[in-house]
């Protein structure tokens, strides 16, 4: 079986704002049918990456392909296969919910009215409510409905849950899960909330210092990154490290090392070489995310 063309492909992407380099030669491929969580601190460049990848922002250099076309010159047909919820939602404040839905529907060859009605019911949105008077959370819900009603192949959500309250977030997660359950649909969503990502995503990409420092299966990431608690009888050198180390902290006779793929042999070597005790700690996604901030991108 040949590898199918990725739904989104970003190669060597560079984007700079004034003197500030945001993306520094970033590579990312999103394969069809995956649910990819893009994880990064505030200001890491998640939105810049998404906007470049969707052809909304012109990169300084590098290539961005989307649904088999260059993103910057995306055809209307390709755009109809794409659903996008930006982080900052600007909808026409003078319109009512129902009007905006009708207006948006008129642009698309395909529009699932039943799905829209279902969402409005589930999320208790009023068709007569004026958009300008809505809360941020309600506006976000509406934006999500607008992005899904034409049943796009690729759904891109930029910090979708950021302005929702916990109850609405749960409800929203349920919806994303339902949306992703449909076979070939690809979902990319950016977040800094690791618990949301873990429930929904099957793949994760971590953006740090302008590059993707990890991209792969979520389970593989959790299985591979561990934290070692090392205690030796005599002080450890300041330069103490371990093969595969992501972040090392040495304090006298003790060291705290987050590490990738530490084999039992590696642990045994440390035990013998330093006559140290080594305790292996599982890390949750949030811990891993924080540790990965220290890893220098390749």
């Amino acid at each position: 079986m040949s590898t199918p063309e990725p739904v989104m492909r970003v190669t060597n992407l560079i984007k700079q704002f004034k003197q500030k380099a945001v993306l520094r030669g970033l590579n990312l491929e999103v394969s069809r049918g995956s649910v990819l969580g893009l994880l990064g601190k505030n200001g890491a460049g998640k939105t810049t990456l998404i906007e470049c990848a969707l052809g909304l922002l012109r990169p300084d250099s590098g290539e961005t392909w989307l649904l088999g076309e260059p993103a910057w010159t995306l055809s209307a047909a390709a755009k109809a296969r794409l659903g996008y919820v930006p982080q900052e939602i600007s909808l026409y404040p003078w319109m009512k919910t129902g009007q905006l839905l009708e207006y948006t529907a008129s642009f698309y060859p395909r529009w699932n009215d039943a799905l829209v009605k279902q969402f409005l019911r589930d999320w208790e949105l009023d068709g007569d409510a004026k958009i300008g008077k809505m809360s941020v959370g309600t506006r976000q819900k509406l934006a999500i409905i607008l992005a899904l009603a034409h049943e796009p192949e690729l759904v891109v959500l930029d910090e979708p849950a950021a302005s929702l309250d916990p109850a609405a977030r749960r409800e929203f997660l349920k919806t994303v899960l339902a949306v992703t359950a449909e076979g070939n649909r690809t979902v990319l969503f950016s977040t800094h909330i690791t618990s949301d990502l873990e429930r929904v995503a099957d793949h994760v990409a971590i953006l740090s210092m302008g590059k993707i420092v990890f991209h792969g299966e979520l389970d593989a990431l959790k299985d591979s990154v561990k934290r070692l608690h090392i205690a030796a009888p005599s002080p450890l050198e300041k330069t103490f490290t371990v093969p595969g180390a992501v972040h090392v902290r040495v304090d006298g006779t003790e060291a705290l090392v987050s590490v990738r793929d530490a084999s039992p042999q590696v642990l045994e070597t440390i035990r013998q070489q330093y006559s140290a005790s080594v305790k292996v700690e599982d890390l949750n996604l949030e811990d891993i995310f924080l540790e990965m901030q220290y890893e220098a991108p390749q």
Partner: protein
Amino acid sequence: MAKAFAITVSTSSGAPLYRQIIDQVRARVAGGHLAAGEFLPSVRQLAEHLQINPMTVSKAYSLLEREGVIEFVRGQGMRVNPPGPAANGKARRAAIFPLLKQAAATARQLSLTPEQVIADLKSILENDDEHA
């Protein structure tokens, strides 16, 4: 089936979600809380209940099937297999192993001898009430 819904997952745990499901099903089967012949909830039901990606549940189920803990029955779902006597003992020992490892690591840090630790563990096991 209702009993299998007692499965919970936590995103603050270091274990991947699929492994949390596997561990709990295994422990419930080994401990007799899930009897042979009982059915697990469907992938969709459990995913909805836990609010997680169905692929995660599906992965856990297929690994449990490979281990022989459960078996797929056409048109009915995943059925709990009767645990063989050896498998049963093995599974129960496997369930406590991580805790023992943790205790061993702490014992090493405290420079306790194996004899001391084993003696304490033995006394805890034999005099449950006094230490509880």
